[in-house]
């Protein structure tokens, strides 16, 4: 046997905590001494189990904590789909299920926990599920497609999350809870009642104080019978009745386990066997198991520390939780049940509004110990941090929970207050990130991890960043420009409410001065979105940027480009010939654009009407390449020709491009439609991207190429044509109403409170009841659409503007000249203004 100089550390389990352990080990240099071997039973590398439910929306890739599945450090080897079968602490070996033996110097158990399935008759019928892995969710999704009614057994945090997911999969869902209230570990009776009200409003049926006697069915689930004898017919059951630590490896090896399960470990996470450690949900420090990720992360850091001879210890953890249920805010933090001796409760309850808030306060009234929030958890981040930092309560602590009080915002957390408990990030560290150059909450999340795990601290992080800017005298000025101290969205509402039709009315009532190159085009765009008049209507013309004023894009030498619409990129040979002839006859440079159409460059302004006359006569219309408006809806060839296509992507792209053509918006808008998941139209790089499925269309929103690329995110799946268009109408109109000037949809969604979830509430769930109003606004746009170029060449008043010189309309501007390159024109460089001398004849006026 060759002596091996390097030691070996084996990690069993590649879940959230195992992964964090490896990251910390590499970061702190443990891999200098150890080769690290990680065994993962699951086929995929660690993923974000906390965000498991979002698998239905974003898919598995987005959840991965180690995309690619390989650590950069070559001394770490990750063996996926590999399980440990047994451990022998005496010989320091791990035996794999394949029989392979692996010796270790140190062994870290990070095997997590497994859902507890109560041993009721029928618990193993086909149609029963648990909710722990991506594979579980895939199976649930497949079963939900063929089911109408289902039940979730367990009304705790996870049970409610699973129930809501089931409901969103279109299954009528029952929640069965043995205790008299939902989320009994977190909320008290009064809070539980208000929570039940919210949950029922979501459309879930709740059965509390009900024990499940039996799951009915012969092979497959057909119903569920309660101890009371009552039966509910249904087709699927999800168990979410708690978890049990996966401590079997330790038990079989004779390692001590806690009374209620879990590898018994000391303050440094050492088990009863030498060189064997346990972290995460499989561990029970001081006999207690922790079912949250944050304590597991802390344990991982402590073991790395201990292996480096550090002295860190684990002394319990913050068990605060916030429910990630759509539309229902529930949070509990610290000593939520008031178990501390002599603590006093402070309760605010409004059954009508569905709000319940309880603070648990120390007997001397000085410290916040914990609390429960139902219906409005906006103060969660602050309150949790107040508990963890032991800061003194303000004089009127009730201010913290009264509705619409300013109290909560006036409280200043100390720098050491932990704001993000998942990643143990303090207020001081957040402010430090701003000092280090971060200019937004999103940037702080990237560089400190605050908000990167469960996300519940995000509002608090955002507020700290904003307050910190303010405290440094950096005014986060939201004014459009010196003439309007409001945002584009506010301006949009003002115009809508008052029904203004001109810039003059608006600036006189709500602004000052005579406007500028920033606010004028914004007002023009807002008026265009609401009235859909001609952008060159008399009063609007001076508001337009030159591109809109001449319905063409200005180029570096003062000439313009011409882009006719080629919807979906589909064009007949006849039309291609027309474009070729027009470009040839006017001597224009031609290029195929990145948007699947053809651009003709180098047109003098006074030539535009003649060029467009030719194009309009041949059946072309404006492509709005110049507008903050819909540009193109890119398509792939789709099912008509492509052997993989499952829907007619070209027809859909054309229909959408024609529906939204001319729609003025905060920034330009682009769409794409692909005929299958191969995504040849790059739809996910667009503001709205549609990908065909066997059943219909998946709708993605918020994609962007450009300076800050972003992939569009899934908003809704398997839509039929009508639903797709309805959602798109709502999405686009909501963006037009609330987007900021020059804010693409990707940044707009990022800036919305609630992000994509918020968009989904408004567009899909119609939570604000705005749906029909947004659809009606879009219908108005569609009904009143006309081609701007056609209307322009037919209107002598508008045509008067297309002259080179007001006093010499036929004379070309001598400042414009061209060279030739690769057989086409290109602008000649200009050194200074060209003077014609006094010889040129000008019209006497």
């Amino acid at each position: 046997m060759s002596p091996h100089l390097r030691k070996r550390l084996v990690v069993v389990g590649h879940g959230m905590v195992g992964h964090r352990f490896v990251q910390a080990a590499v970061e702190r240099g443990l891999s200098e001494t150890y080769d690290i071997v990680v065994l993962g039973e699951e086929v995929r590398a660690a993923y974000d189990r906390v965000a498991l439910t979002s698998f239905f929306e974003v898919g598995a890739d987005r959840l991965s904590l180690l995309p690619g599945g390989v650590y950069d450090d070559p001394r770490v080897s990750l063996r996926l789909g590999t399980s440990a079968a047994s451990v022998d602490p005496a010989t320091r070996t791990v035996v794999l299920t394949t029989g392979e033996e692996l010796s270790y110097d140190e062994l870290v158990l990070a095997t997590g926990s497994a859902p507890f399935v109560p041993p009721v008759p029928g618990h193993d019928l086909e149609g029963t599920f648990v909710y722990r892995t991506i594979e579980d969710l895939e199976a649930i999704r497949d079963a939900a497609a063929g089911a109408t009614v289902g039940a979730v057994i367990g009304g705790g945090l996870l049970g409610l999350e699973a129930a809501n997911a089931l409901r969103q999969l279109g299954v009528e869902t029952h929640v069965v809870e043995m205790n008299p209230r939902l989320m009994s570990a977190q909320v008290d009776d009064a809070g539980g009642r208000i929570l039940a009200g919210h949950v029922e409003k979501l459309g879930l049926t709740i059965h509390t104080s009900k024990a499940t006697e039996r799951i009915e069915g012969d092979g497959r689930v057909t119903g569920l019978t309660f101890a009371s004898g009552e039966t509910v017919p249904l087709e699927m059951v999800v168990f979410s009745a708690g978890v049990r630590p996966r401590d079997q490896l330790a038990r079989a090896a004779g390692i001590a386990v806690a009374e209620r399960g879990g590898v018994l470990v000391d303050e440094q996470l050492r088990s009863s066997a030498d060189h064997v450690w346990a972290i995460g949900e499989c561990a029970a420090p001081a006999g207690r198991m922790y079912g949250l990720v944050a304590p597991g992360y802390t344990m991982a850091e402590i073991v790395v520390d201990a292996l480096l001879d550090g002295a860190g210890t684990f002394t319990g953890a913050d068990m605060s939780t916030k429910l990630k249920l759509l539309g229902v805010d529930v949070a509990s933090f610290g000593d939520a049940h008031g178990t501390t001796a002599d603590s006093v409760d402070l309760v605010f309850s409004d059954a009508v509004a569905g709000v319940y808030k309880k603070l648990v306060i120390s007997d001397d009234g000085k410290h916040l110990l914990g609390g429960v929030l139902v219906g409005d958890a906006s103060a969660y981040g602050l309150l949790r941090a107040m508990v963890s930092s032991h800061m003194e309560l303000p004089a009127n602590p009730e201010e913290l929970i009264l509705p619409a009080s300013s109290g909560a915002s006036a409280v200043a957390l100390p720098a050491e207050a932990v704001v993000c408990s998942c990643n143990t990030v303090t207020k001081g560290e957040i402010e430090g990130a701003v000092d280090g150059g971060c200019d937004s909450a999103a940037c702080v999340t990237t560089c400190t991890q605050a908000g990167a795990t469960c996300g519940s601290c995000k509002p608090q992080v955002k507020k700290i960043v904003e307050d910190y800017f303010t405290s440094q005298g950096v005014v986060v000025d939201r004014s459009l420009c010196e003439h309007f101290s409001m945002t584009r969205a506010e301006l949009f509402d003002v115009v809508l409410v008052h029904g203004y039709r001109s810039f003059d009315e608006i600036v006189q009532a709500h602004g000052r001065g005579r406007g500028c190159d920033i606010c004028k085009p914004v007002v023009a765009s807002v008026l265009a979105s609401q009235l859909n008049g001609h952008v060159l209507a008399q009063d609007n013309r001076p508001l337009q940027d030159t591109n809109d004023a001449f319905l063409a894009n200005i180029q570096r030498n003062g000439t313009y480009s011409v882009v006719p619409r080629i919807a979906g990129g589909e064009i007949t040979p006849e039309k291609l010939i027309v474009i070729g002839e027009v470009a040839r006859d006017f001597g224009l440079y031609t290029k195929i654009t990145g948007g699947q159409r053809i651009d003709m460059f180098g047109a003098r302004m006074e030539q535009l009407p003649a060029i467009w006359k030719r194009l309009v006569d041949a059946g072309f219309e404006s492509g709005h390449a110049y507008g903050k408006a819909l540009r193109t809806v890119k398509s792939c060839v789709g099912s008509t020709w492509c052997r993989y296509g499952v829907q007619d992507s070209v027809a859909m792209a054309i229909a959408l491009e024609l529906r939204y053509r001319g729609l003025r918006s905060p920034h330009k808008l682009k769409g794409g439609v692909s005929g299958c998941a191969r995504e040849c139209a790059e739809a996910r790089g667009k503001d709205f991207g549609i990908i065909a499925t066997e059943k219909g269309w998946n709708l993605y929103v918020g994609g962007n190429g450009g300076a800050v690329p972003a992939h569009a995110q899934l908003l809704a799946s398997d839509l039929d044509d009508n639903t797709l268009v309805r959602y798109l109408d709502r999405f686009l109109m909501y963006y037009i109403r609330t987007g900021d000037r020059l804010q693409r949809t990707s940044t707009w969604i990022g800036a919305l409170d609630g992000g994509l979830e918020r968009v989904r509430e408004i567009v899909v769930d119609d939570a604000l009841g705005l749906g029909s109003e947004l659809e009606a606004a879009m219908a108005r746009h569609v009904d009143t659409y006309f081609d701007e170029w056609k209307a322009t060449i037919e209107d002598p008043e508008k045509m008067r503007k297309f002259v080179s010189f007001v006093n010499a309309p036929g004379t070309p501007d001598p400042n414009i000249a061209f060279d030739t390159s690769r057989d086409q024109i290109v602008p000649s460089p200009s050194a200074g203004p060209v003077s014609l001398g006094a010889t040129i004849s000008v019209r006497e006026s």
Partner: protein
Amino acid sequence: MSDATTEQLVAVCALEDIDREGGVAALAHGDVVAVFRTYDDHVHALSNYDPFGHASVLSRGIVGTRGDRPFVASPLHKQAFDLRTGVCLDDDTVRVTTYPVVVRDGQVLVGPASGTGRA
């Protein structure tokens, strides 16, 4: 405007030919001149040549105010020029040529270059 004699003034268009807070390009004294009309019907004339973008385009910019200074923003890269002096408000070392201009009987008359730009 006082330094241009009546003989030197050339009529370029009617005041009505220029939009309020808009501009037109005209040929005057062999130069390409941008003539602007403000909200309160003052008329100003500048060289049409944008010294930053090196193109003859200023008449197509947006007209507005910064504080109480009337200005035009270049349609190419948005630099602002004071309509009265031709001075660039974003970089006062740059100035475009100005032309004297008067409105008489509804006609806009432009004189030869007065302030010469450095561009």
